[in-house]
């Protein structure tokens, strides 16, 4: 079906481009054989990394530290480069903007599900960090319960029929100092959002290609190409920027979204417990509110 074509197409892109795959183990070599589309191997294993695999990490660009989003640029781009919504979706979006202006913001991420892809990269106000290990790039975020991206750079293709998830299935390769990430298998219910009150579920078949690269010593850019033919009339190209912080006080804070629905309390046995907070229309209110 769709995913099978996806796998073949991506494999061909990789093969034709002849790109250098990071930390290329044996699997990656197979993936670059011209004209040989790679099907996911159901019996593939995660081989133990070699010393050479670890050493190869030193050749990658330095993306250590904590990356904080450039929020003013997010907001500027929301106005200057909106997604090419289909006409039907554009009506929903206009209504959501009107509702937000009227003080009735639509609760896109109030449910405590992960913000997910691509909205995390587009609208977050929180920081993330990027880890390199052999065959893998991992992005760990802040702010919701499972803000975590696993990007496989070991040359594997997407699975033939991956389970949909909030962050999707991501494979990546290095094009010089740019990490190219291809993401599929995103839950149809996941939002394509331009702010915390405006966006729509992607409704399925969304495909994201990102090029992550440094703009200067301490600015990371994510150039996104988002294809979502159920809601967009054509692929949307947009960029988000993040600044590097090194002060340890800015290290990532644990973010367990559900914790925000409780307050600290002590039960009759003297145990420390979480007690529910009173909410009204999605926001905490004083317990004596009507």
């Amino acid at each position, binding site marked *: 079906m769709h995913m099978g074509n996806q796998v073949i197409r991506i494999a061909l892109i990789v093969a034709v481009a002849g790109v250098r795959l990071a930390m290329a183990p044996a699997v990656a070599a197979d993936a670059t054989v011209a004209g040989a589309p790679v099907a996911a191997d159901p019996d593939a294993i995660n081989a133990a990394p070699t010393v050479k695999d670890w050493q190869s990490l030193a050749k990658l660009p330095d993306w250590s530290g904590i990356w904080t989003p450039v929020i003013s640029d997010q907001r500027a781009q929301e106005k200057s480069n909106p997604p090419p919504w289909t006409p039907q979706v554009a009506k929903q979006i206009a209504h959501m903007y009107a509702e937000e202006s009227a003080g009735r913001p639509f609760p896109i991420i109030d449910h405590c599900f992960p913000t997910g892809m691509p909205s995390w990269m587009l609208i977050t106000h929180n920081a993330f960090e990027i880890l390199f290990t052999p065959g893998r790039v991992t992005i760990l975020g*802040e702010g919701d319960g499972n803000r975590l991206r696993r990007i496989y750079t070991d040359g594997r293709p997407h699975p033939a029929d991956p389970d949909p998830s909030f962050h999707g299935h991501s494979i990546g390769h290095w094009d010089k100092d740019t990490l190219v990430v291809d993401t599929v298998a995103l839950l149809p219910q996941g939002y394509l959002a331009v702010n915390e009150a405006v966006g729509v579920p992607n409704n399925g078949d969304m495909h994201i290609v990102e090029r992550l690269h440094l703009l200067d010593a301490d600015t990371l850019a994510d150039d996104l190409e988002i294809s979502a033919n159920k809601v967009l009339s054509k692929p949307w190209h947009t960029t988000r920027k993040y600044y590097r912080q090194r002060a340890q006080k*800015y290290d990532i804070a644990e973010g367990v979204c559900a914790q925000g629905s409780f307050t600290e309390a002590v039960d009759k046995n003297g145990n420390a417990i979480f007690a529910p907070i009173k909410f009204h229309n999605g926001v905490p209110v004083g317990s004596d509110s009507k």
Partner: protein
Amino acid sequence: MNQVSVKRPLMAAMLAAAVAAGWPAAAHHSFAMYEPTKTLTFKGTVKAFQWTNPHVVVWVLVQPDAGGAAQEWSFETTSPGVLTRAGWTRQSLKAGDRVSVTFSPLRDGSHGGGLNSVTLIDTGQKLVPSFGKEQPGLK
């Protein structure tokens, strides 16, 4: 909880459209349910300082103008990670602190608001939520 010992709340509703532009919207939901063109200031006593994701909440007991029991109000702001970059810590406020809170109230009249600033009455220290400076290498 501690007995509330506060002055009458200062109900200083005023037009402040500029507040909207500088509003530190949270990491979780739009803050449009708060009325950005209204700013109120209450004095009260911190009941709890909830230092949690996705939102930090300052719970304050406020003595109503008309007398009677203190009312519990919630003042919501952005997340611990973001506030840390603005100079806050988990210890910035504690239960029992006497505070003056400036906020945009919920439009539906519930006892809650979006926090604009909180000042510790005993020390004069003013805490303002913000995203912090947009630049790398912050100290």
